[in-house]
């Protein structure tokens, strides 16, 4: 009996942690002005929750319970620090003073949502990009260090060090804990968007990980984008980002076949696409469009929407896709966007037009993608021998063994046509 109860409590703690870790940390950072201490104290509170919720039954207001427990744990930690003659900041002194008022939050709804401040702090441009991603996943999303390390194919020790250093940097560099002023909000939001996008692409196109699609990171990215949209509902690009992630994620069921191999857009079984997600993505994109402030994420979402509407590759509105890429490229000059643009032009105006665009790209990065795109367009032009050579070359520089396998199969299939 008690074992069952313990198990139920553990599940509740895990669920509350997933949903409310960021919220609790955000409140604590606001009170303590010490990122590291807030993180540690909330961590202590989850440990306490695991111990006591099974024994005494779960509290009525779990988040309020965690926040006040974490606050007490922070005071414990400050006392310990004081005994060790370490410096305690002025907020700490106040907390240690006898007059510290008890929290008057009774229900979870009384707790202010300060996660927006937390997100902007974690995604501050003065923090190195990979550290922003790690800190956001740790502090806002509440992933464990081990989970983050696994997701980024690095050791737990390395990730632990990176997160500890980043938290220290937030404190020592004086990175503010606030939502940026209106005049800098958009620039800072871009940094938040790129962190979320990086989490998504890492999950979506894993290079080293055996599972091609790492569902955890994809889900976390969508949750983060939803959070930003709920806290800043009138930001067109935040909505555009969320729409883009949902529209991409809608194709998840068809992206990997039974052997775990990556399936290209053209070969995907479109009947397995998640039409609820597509509808949601389209609705959000429409909301973004109504705000009248276009941007790169909205454009990419619009391209993804065109693909999701098309019953097949041939029936895709490639003219429109190519036109959207032409608007996107000056704003988002990435190599993969240039390659996708070339393919779209090849589909809209004939393979030669696309091949001309591919010729202009520098292929010095040893990436499989431009070669694979070339193979695809050469094949459409009926130049099957050259296409097979291009697919072979692409297979040689593929970063993932399954991708290489697929490209070699493609080269073989193409070669047999001659």
């Amino acid at each position: 009996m008690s074992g069952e109860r313990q198990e139920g409590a553990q599940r509740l703690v895990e669920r509350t942690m997933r949903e409310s870790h960021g919220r609790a940390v955000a409140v604590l950072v606001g009170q303590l002005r010490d990122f590291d201490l807030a993180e540690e104290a909330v961590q202590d509170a989850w440990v306490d929750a695991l111990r006591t919720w099974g024994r005494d039954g779960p509290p009525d207001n779990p988040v309020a319970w965690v926040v006040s427990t974490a606050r007490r744990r922070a005071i414990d930690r400050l006392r310990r620090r004081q005994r060790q003659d370490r410096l305690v900041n002025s907020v700490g002194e106040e907390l240690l003073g006898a007059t510290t008022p008890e929290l008057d939050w009774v229900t979870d709804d009384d707790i202010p949502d300060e996660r927006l401040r937390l997100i902007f702090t974690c995604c501050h441009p003065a923090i190195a990009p990979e550290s922003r991603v790690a800190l956001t996943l740790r502090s806002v999303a509440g992933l464990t260090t081990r989970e983050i390390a696994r997701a980024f194919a690095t050791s737990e020790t390395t990730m632990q060090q990176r997160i500890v250093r980043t938290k220290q940097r937030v404190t020592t560099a004086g990175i503010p804990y606030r939502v940026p002023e209106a005049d800098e909000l958009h620039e800072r939001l871009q940094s938040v968007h790129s962190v979320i996008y990086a989490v998504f692409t890492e999950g979506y196109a894993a290079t080293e990980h055996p599972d091609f699609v790492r569902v955890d990171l994809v889900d976390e990215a969508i949750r983060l984008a939803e959070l930003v949209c709920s806290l800043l509902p009138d930001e067109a690009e935040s909505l555009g980002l969320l729409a883009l992630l949902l529209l991409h994620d809608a194709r998840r069921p068809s992206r990997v076949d039974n052997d775990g191999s990556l399936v290209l857009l053209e070969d995907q079984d479109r009947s397995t696409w998640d039409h609820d997600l597509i509808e949601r993505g389209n609705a959000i994109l429409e909301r973004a469009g109504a705000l009248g402030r276009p941007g790169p994420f909205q454009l990419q979402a619009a391209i993804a929407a065109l693909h999701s509407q098309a019953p097949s590759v041939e029936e895709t509105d490639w003219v429109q896709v190519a036109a959207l890429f032409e608007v996107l490229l000056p704003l988002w000059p990435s190599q993969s966007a240039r390659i996708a643009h070339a393919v779209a032009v090849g589909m809209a105006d004939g393979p030669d037009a696309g091949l001309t665009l591919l010729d202009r790209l520098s292929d010095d990065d040893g990436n499989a993608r431009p070669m694979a795109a070339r193979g695809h367009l050469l094949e459409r032009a009926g130049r099957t021998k050259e296409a097979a050579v291009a697919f072979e070359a692409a297979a040689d520089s593929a970063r993932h063994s399954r991708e290489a396998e697929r490209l070699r199969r493609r080269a073989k299939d193409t070669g047999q046509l001659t």
Partner: protein
Amino acid sequence: MKYLLLLGVDGPIDGLVDPANSDNHAVLAQYQALRRDLEDSGSWCGGEALQPAMSATGLRIRGRRVVLHDGPTVGSSDRIVGYYLVDCYDLDHAIEVSARIPIAEHGTVEIRPVREQHPAMQGPAP
């Protein structure tokens, strides 16, 4: 919190302004305006332009002897041509101030937080 803003140059110029530049009075006016604003807002704690790096003297104590070195000795310090010490609300404020320093247009401003109340730098107890 206090920040030390280190003004570094990237090119061959060894000073706050390029002596070959005819537009120096405009640059100097920007420095003067920045100083005035920092003083008015109470952020100013200090700041100077430095003599060229070749005028630096390095000092080490080795075996109870003071050993001097001719020229810059601390890593990369030959690139530092001046500094500000400013009191800011947070890093964003320090970034805002640093972005107004003309040298940022061709060199670098390193924003270095000052460790406040460090026991090693505190005077004797009253």
